[in-house]
């Protein structure tokens, strides 16, 4: 049986290395994008002590691209990453998954981390994505980032209540 998860707590920033929010820091090439959003709680208040991690299986990891990033939310609950835009990857069976990032939220008050995804509005593959198609109408958009200016993608994450983000059991 697995070791139990415990909260990351409010003092996890001892681990924080701000350079980890930039997945291109080792020189990865490709379409560089900014990925940003805010994390809010059930009262709509910004979560200022959360740890947000992203993982992407595309482009392939290499010496210059670990595919992994970590960022702290700031005083307004905002996180920002810089990375290379992912491409489509295989899904179960013969399906194709639309470009996406896996997103993990850790925070004080979360005993087990929350897993969600960050898709890109307008990607033609979204329509047939095997994961998005498992989600009921009206909630799917909680996973789809909007381009607010060229190369800048934004998605808010709400842990509880109205507009609650879809979180996964994986």
């Amino acid at each position: 049986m697995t070791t139990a998860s415990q909260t990351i707590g409010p003092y996890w920033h001892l681990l924080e290395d701000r350079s980890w929010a930039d997945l291109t820091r080792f020189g990865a090439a490709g379409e560089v994008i900014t990925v940003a959003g805010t994390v809010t709680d059930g009262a709509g208040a910004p979560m200022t002590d959360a740890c947000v991690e992203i993982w992407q299986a595309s482009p392939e990891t290499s010496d210059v691209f670990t595919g992994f990033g970590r960022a702290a939310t700031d005083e307004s609950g905002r996180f920002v990453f810089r990375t290379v835009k992912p491409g489509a990857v295989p899904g179960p069976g013969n399906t194709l998954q639309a470009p996406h990032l896996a997103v993990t939220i850790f925070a004080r008050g979360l005993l087990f981390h929350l897993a969600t995804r960050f898709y890109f509005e307008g990607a033609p593959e979204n329509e047939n994505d095997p994961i998005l198609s498992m989600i009921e109408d009206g909630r799917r958009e909680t996973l789809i980032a909007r381009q607010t200016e060229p190369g800048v993608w934004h998605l808010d994450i709400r842990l509880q209540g109205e507009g609650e983000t879809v979180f996964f059991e994986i």
Partner: protein
Amino acid sequence: MSYIDTPFREYAAGTQPDNDSPAYKSTILRHPTRKLVKIPQTVTELSGPRFSAERFPPTDNLALNNGKEAQGERIIVEGRVLDEDGRPVPHTMVEIWQANAAGRYNHARDQHDAPLDPEFSGIGRVFTDEAGAYRFISIKPGAYPWGNHANAWRPNHIHFSLFGPGYATRLITQMYFPGDPLLALDPIFLATADAGARERLVSKFDLEITQPNWALGYRFDIVLRGRQATPMEDGHDHR
């Protein structure tokens, strides 16, 4: 990308804490109220980041800062990272962080009225070896008060962060110390329903690890998710 496409096993009932655990007050506004959507494990969940010691240099002695000793009871923490089938998880990164001997984190938001130690940052990073073993030196962290309820104190603990073979094996946990009377009162520790699972969060004092006249030793083994079936090696008969 190299990864094994056999999915990871589901967590056994009761072995992981429920985010809806109101005795731990910070969970009240932070736990999702909608049911989690169960999704298949795809390449995204089955693969995961790899960290090399070259690019992410280890720091395995938290008790020493530029040759100066931190205050407190010196400890050695040793253990293995295994999967649910007892197989070692080799070359995986283990991040650790903790309060100092007085129960204070070297963190601007920690306002507990206890002294900071200029020789203790409380951060470390180690990698497991081929056999899944890790080891680091530190000082025993102090207990500290928190605002969860009247006269609430966190038991002595060290935070651990692990990655394992895939995104789906990510784990952040806390290691506790044997015989701590605060464990029975701690809503974070108690949020895991299964008593055996709670017990496995408590390290064991180990005289073998203990070094005479120098430091007490504790053993803390960590188990990450195993695979749903044993993966076959290429070239074998799969029937």
